[in-house]
């Protein structure tokens, strides 16, 4: 019978996942715990737009390359794949899909949004980098649609996330979504698509609405 030895907690972790220290270029020692969930504690700040021609140029550049987060909620997510097929070909409008929130600038809420899904949508939206825009598809995001009296789906999205363009329909066809993208481009070029700034300014109101329905709020207030 061999006695039980003291086994360190991280014995079965891969070496890069164990707690370790790193020495920086200036000699400072940084303690790293890779399994800890790090996030920024800062609340979002309003980024004032530039003035004059520079902002117009930037808006033109932003409008011509819309990178969409490949994320679908509800039945509208089935309308998005044909958008990128040769028949509708959203690439010719500068619209393309990206796999992660960090790389994308447009969040499409495609249909009804359950409370459980709203939590994930908020996390995804807050992790996206400025400038960022929200497109809401379908009547469910406008006034609840056919789920207006459901116990678990939200009625209007603009109380929880700043919506730039609503596309009506149940569900909107890919042509309608293309029209919505063009509408969003017009909005960006005219300098009205300041949803991220609106979210930062009215963060308390948005957070109060979100926390009213997400009762087990087990994430940071603003998480990214």
């Amino acid at each position, binding site marked *: 019978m061999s006695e039980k030895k003291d086994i360190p907690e991280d014995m079965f972790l891969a070496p890069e996942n164990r707690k370790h220290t790193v020495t920086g270029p200036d000699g400072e020692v940084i303690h790293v715990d890779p399994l800890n969930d790090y996030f920024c504690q800062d609340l979002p700040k309003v980024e004032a737009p530039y003035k004059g021609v520079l902002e117009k140029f930037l808006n033109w550049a932003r409008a011509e390359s819309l990178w969409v987060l490949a994320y679908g909620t509800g039945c509208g997510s089935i309308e998005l794949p044909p958008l990128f097929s040769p028949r509708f070909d959203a690439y010719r409008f500068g619209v393309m899909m990206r796999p992660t929130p960090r790389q994308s600038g447009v969040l499409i809420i495609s249909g009804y949004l*359950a*409370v*459980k899904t709203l*939590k994930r949508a908020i996390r995804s939206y807050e992790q996206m980098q400025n400038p960022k825009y929200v497109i809401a598809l379908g009547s469910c995001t*406008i*006034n*609840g649609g056919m789920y*207006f*009296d*459901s*116990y*678990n*789906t*939200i*009625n*209007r999205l603009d*109380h929880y996330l700043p919506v730039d363009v609503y596309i009506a329909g149940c569900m909107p066809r890919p042509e309608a979504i293309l029209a919505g993208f063009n509408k969003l481009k017009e909005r960006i070029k005219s300098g009205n698509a300041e949803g991220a700034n609106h979210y930062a300014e009215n963060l308390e109101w948005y957070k109060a*609405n979100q926390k*009213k*329905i*997400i*009762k*087990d709020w087990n994430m940071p207030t603003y998480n990214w």
Partner: protein
Amino acid sequence: MNEIIEHIKKRFPVYEIGEGPNGVILMSVEASRLVPMLTSLKTNHGYSILVILSTVDWLEDCKFQLTYIVNNPEEKRDLGIRVFIQREDAEMESIHTLWEHAATFQREIKEMFGINFPGSPGVDDQFLLEGWDNKPPMRRDFDTKKYAEETFFPRPGRETNDPAAYMKQKLYPDE
């Protein structure tokens, strides 16, 4: 088929034998005899698949109805067994020992109807409703419309017509 029903009738207090949609034989049994009956059907009669476990809320009778539909893959035949339990402090014996996936059905029923299944693995875990602190929403005395109006900021301007009143107005405007 009749042989099996006769055989079950002899051994278990079965009542209300009827035929449901698509030729499914439905029968009711006392709640305390359900698990022995399902065990017998599974081991002796080849009903080896649990197709679904569903619930009906009979609010007026103060009862919950649980329907267990089992399938015999060799004879390609379904059999439905109904059980009525009290609505107050509803509790039912778990059948996860017979079919593992019954635990998922029971977890969902616990959340949506508040029927407890003691001993079922993970029956108290959240399934769809995270942080739900109200009455179980599928119970018929839970007013979903009122809850949604109080919770989800309804957009003003929405009109809803009662179908009966609308058709009466349309067909018989003089009355």
